[in-house]
């Protein structure tokens, strides 16, 4: 076989990455409905709870209120989960279904670049969503910042990774964009309901609460709540999140198809 030395190997550089990230961001921003859920829904939950009576200081928490340690974690979990579990897989499944990934596969860009660009876009969205929610919480409802900001940030990063991993798994198994949204929403509301999104978990049957606690949504709210209160999150919750990352990634790697 003749070797072709006159054709240089060239992989897409920083400009290509930047363009692709910009493209994914435009896709998200121009999909108004998709943007409304991760920004709007957490705000709605925040305001509803903020107007309720949960602003009393809790005993033994050094001035923190139930709003700080229960509502804010749930709001953060909603932002992270809607973006990771509902939005991202719907884009990826749609890209595969319609041949966007196939088209990219015949250019020097690898379709995996889209996956990476989606994750970057999701991180930006998550950051924006959380910053908006926290700003409203602090300005309108006198929320307190976390007692252990480093820990809180670390837990949020872990939470985001877990949700994105679940999202990529959904994208891997969903045949269409619509199916991905359906699976994502069912998972989101299932995990949310058992993880305290609609009310304190103490009101749930014990077995349901136990399951909800180790699912990513429940684990995120519990761990973020602990970090907000300045405590080290329970290892059960951290292990649950790590398990979600590992299992979902393995599943996604096994089932993900580019076309």
């Amino acid at each position, binding site marked *: *076989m*003749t*070797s*072709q030395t006159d*054709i*240089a*190997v*060239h*992989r*897409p*550089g920083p*400009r*290509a990455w930047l*363009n*692709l990230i910009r*493209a994914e961001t*435009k*896709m998200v921003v*121009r*999909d108004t409905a998709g943007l409304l859920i991760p920004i709007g829904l957490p705000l709605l939950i925040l305001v509803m709870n903020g107007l309720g009576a949960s602003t009393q200081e809790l005993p033994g928490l050094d001035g923190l209120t139930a709003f700080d340690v229960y509502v804010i974690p749930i709001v953060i979990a909603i932002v992270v989960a809607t973006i990771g579990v509902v939005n991202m897989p719907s884009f990826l499944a749609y*890209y595969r279904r*319609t*041949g*966007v990934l*196939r*088209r990219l*596969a*015949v*250019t*020097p*860009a690898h379709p995996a670049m889209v996956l990476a660009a989606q994750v970057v876009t999701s991180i930006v969205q998550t950051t924006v969503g959380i910053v908006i929610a926290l700003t409203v919480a602090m300005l309108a409802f006198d929320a307190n910042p976390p007692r252990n900001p480093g820990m809180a940030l670390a837990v949020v990063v872990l939470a985001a990774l877990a949700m994105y991993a679940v999202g990529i798994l959904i994208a891997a198994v969903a045949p269409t964009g619509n199916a991905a949204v359906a699976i994502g929403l069912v998972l989101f509301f299932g995990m949310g309901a058992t993880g305290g999104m609609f009310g304190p978990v103490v009101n749930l049957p014990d077995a349901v609460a136990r399951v909800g606690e180790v699912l990513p949504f429940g684990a995120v709210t519990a761990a973020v709540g602990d970090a907000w209160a300045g405590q080290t999150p329970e290892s059960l919750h951290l292990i649950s999140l790590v398990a979600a990352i590992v299992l979902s990634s393995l599943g996604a790697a096994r089932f993900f198809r580019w*076309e």
Partner: protein
Amino acid sequence: MLAIEVRNLHKRYGQVVAVDDVSLSVDEGEIVGVLGRNGAGKTTTVEAIAGLRRPDRGTVRVLGLDPHRDRARVRQVLGVQLQSSALHSALTVRELVGLYRSFYATGADPDKLIEAVGLTGSRGTRFEKLSGGQQQRLSIALALVGNPRVALLDELTTGLDPEARRHIWSMVEDLRAGGVTVLLVSHLMEEVERLCDRVALIDQGRVVAVDTPVGLIAAAGLAQRVRFRAARGFDPTVLDRLPDVTGVEVAGEQVTVTGDGELLHNVSTALVHAGVVATETRLERATLDDAFLALTGRPFAQENS
């Protein structure tokens, strides 16, 4: 060196054999057409060359390179237009051409390319809002945005109106002038006859014939036909005895003579000698369509209409 070399390509999906045994060589700078009915294996062959499918058997080389092992090199020099693939729906024409341009080391100027495919008026329109024909033009632009040395164009002008089609054809002729190798999958005989140096006829997963369009028509061994009108009572024996004539049919005033060689000249001379006044005389040559039918033994249009 060969721009594209396919040797004994075989590809099946489950029990269905998509490509049985296809071999094809395309020289640099050549425009080669691939003709065949739906399901003949054209698109699978193109996808194997593009590196989207791994052959079950056989080898594929693009400028001497394996599209899988030398992916990064091949992708830089190979432009592909796929049948029916979508793009980022919310991005505009300009954004998409710019995005795809950034994947390549060298390439076309996005604005000039958009102008060349006639999309300047829609450069700010989102992909999802483009008409079918506009999407097709964009897809052609993206295949050429990296200034490829080899272009695979699958169903190049499907969905385009006659004017746009001719415009795109002249673009392909410009590619030829620039030394670009083109493999063109098509259903349109007119397109193939106009653009292609050679044509490969694929039928049921195999290459049935490879030749120039004229050569294919000749190889099909199809007779020429001369038609004319003559007054009623025309006597066919006037033409029967001519050496190159194989048949004469008279239907009312319409006479059809089949044969080969210098048919038109011989028929005209014989008519003049016999004192027959013939009007509307015309020579009908076999088209690529006719050749296709003759070489594959089945009607072409049946499954494509």
